[in-house]
């Protein structure tokens, strides 16, 4: 199972992780090794099984649609790297002149 540079770039972009070009070859080798492991699953007969969702086959619990959390805005903003006027601050996302 060989990964191309293009594939690695695409995966890294999907994962939003910057990968420096000088680490491409070592990373590709490591990922290929892991992907090779997966080929062992090809021998399994899965024609008669359903995909497992929960080890104990639980149904999804539901609850009343009521607000249970208190407003903890200040508390939650304490951990934010950058805040302005009670909001998370990020670089400009809308293009054009300001």
């Amino acid at each position, binding site marked *: 199972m060989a990964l191309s540079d293009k594939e690695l770039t695409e995966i890294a972009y999907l994962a939003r992780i910057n990968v420096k070009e000088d680490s491409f070859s070592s990373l590709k080798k*490591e990922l290929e090794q892991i992907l090779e492991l997966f080929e062992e*699953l090809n021998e399994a007969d899965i024609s008669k099984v359903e995909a497992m969702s929960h080890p104990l086959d639980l149904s999804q619990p539901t609850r009343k649609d009521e607000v249970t959390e208190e407003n903890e805005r200040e508390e939650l903003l304490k951990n934010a790297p950058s805040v302005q006027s009670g909001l998370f601050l990020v670089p400009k996302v809308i293009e054009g002149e300001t």
Partner: protein
Amino acid sequence: MELHKLSLIEQLEGLKKNEFSSVELTSHYLKRISEHDEKLNSFITVTEEQALAQAKLADDRYKNKQSLALDGLPIAHKDIFCTKGIKTTCGSKMLSDFEAPYSSTVYTKLDDMGMVMLGKTNMDEFAMGSSNETSHFGPVCNPWNHEYVPGGSSGGSASSVSAELAPIATATDTGGSIRQPASLCGLTGIKPTYGRVSRYGMIAFASSLDQGGVVARSAEDAAIVLEGMSGHDSKDSTCLKLESPDLTSNLKSSIKGMKIGLPKEFFEKAMPAYVEKSIQEAIETYKSLGAEIVEVSLKNINLSLPIYYIIAPAECSANLSRYDGVRYGYRCENPKDLEDLFMRTREEGFGAEVKRRILIGTYALSAGFYDAYYLKAQKCRQLVANDFSDAFKTVDVILSPTTPGTAFKAGEKSDDPTEMYLQDIFTIPANLAGLPGISIPCGENAGLPLGMQLVGNSLEEDKLLQFAHSYQMNTEWHKQMPNI
């Protein structure tokens, strides 16, 4: 008196009888931590001030005859459990300054029972690793020999309990992260049935596999704390709707006539002679206690490793998408736009192993590959679970080694991820099937301890602890402590 030589149960008795106070006990451990942890690096944060305050409150309750179930007993918490107002890092640069705005259910439950937190233990970054070498806060040493790893990811918890810097510690297990370090550090480590212990406030790695538990010095000690941690929690939708199980009443019952299964697929493989010898001796001990030994077959067990390395990274890639540098955690310097902020924050904030797993998981879930990888793995996972269900029709527990061998040297496997993954070959199947598993010390080689694993049927933690306790009543392995 050397308070750290007492078991947790004995410490509780001592507190009840006022032989010593919780402040004395807590100070004793804090002193040991300050004396020995510089070498071991088993703690990321030591919460001395809070611990002494909690201990004082416990002593007051004893004085007023209002003591709680586990009042005044010290404990170390893996730094994956959120603790309000105290740093929770998950071993990552991404969360190196993170103070959770709420506490995990595990912490809250044990706190409500009076347990005193000594600090937060070191771990592999985001619980991904088998050697505790991937922590942003540096590697942890094995107290038995400092050149060797303690195992992972709960390496700090295991190292601290093994070095008697804490009488017990919480831990988590996604593919073996409680049982493997327990084996490598000579401890009793139990991962309960999936859903027994709430995952609320336990930082997520692979949600369908993650489960909290403990590392302890005996099955008896593990039982009282696991009982306190377990039970339904409406804040975790996958937590079982069951009350906390009674894990202590049955502990001393005889295992006579009960059946132990030996999976032939595990025993067909070549294992080091010392592993085989230790396991055979353990089997003989169980026979002498009246257990019956039966061969069982788990015919799809060999698929476990590839299944795990699809499911765990896939779920991790989804869970870790929340670390984007916007709402909390690390953010890169001077991002030029939002995309750059995401890309560089995640490049700089995550370590190599975490990034590797996110990339693998992203690949496995990407368009066109979902059926070939994740869906297939979930189907194969059912095959493994079915094998266990069949086996438990005839046996009570399944016995195997916990790890392929004793601890390895630091740096020995860190260059080859797939070599490292083999550490969990015996432990992963229980996570895939959601079953409880325990590791118990059963031997040694060249001064390093080794564990055996027992896997039980769903919800049968009590039986696992009963088997472990009866073994420990008749052997000395769990009593051996490293000379630190």
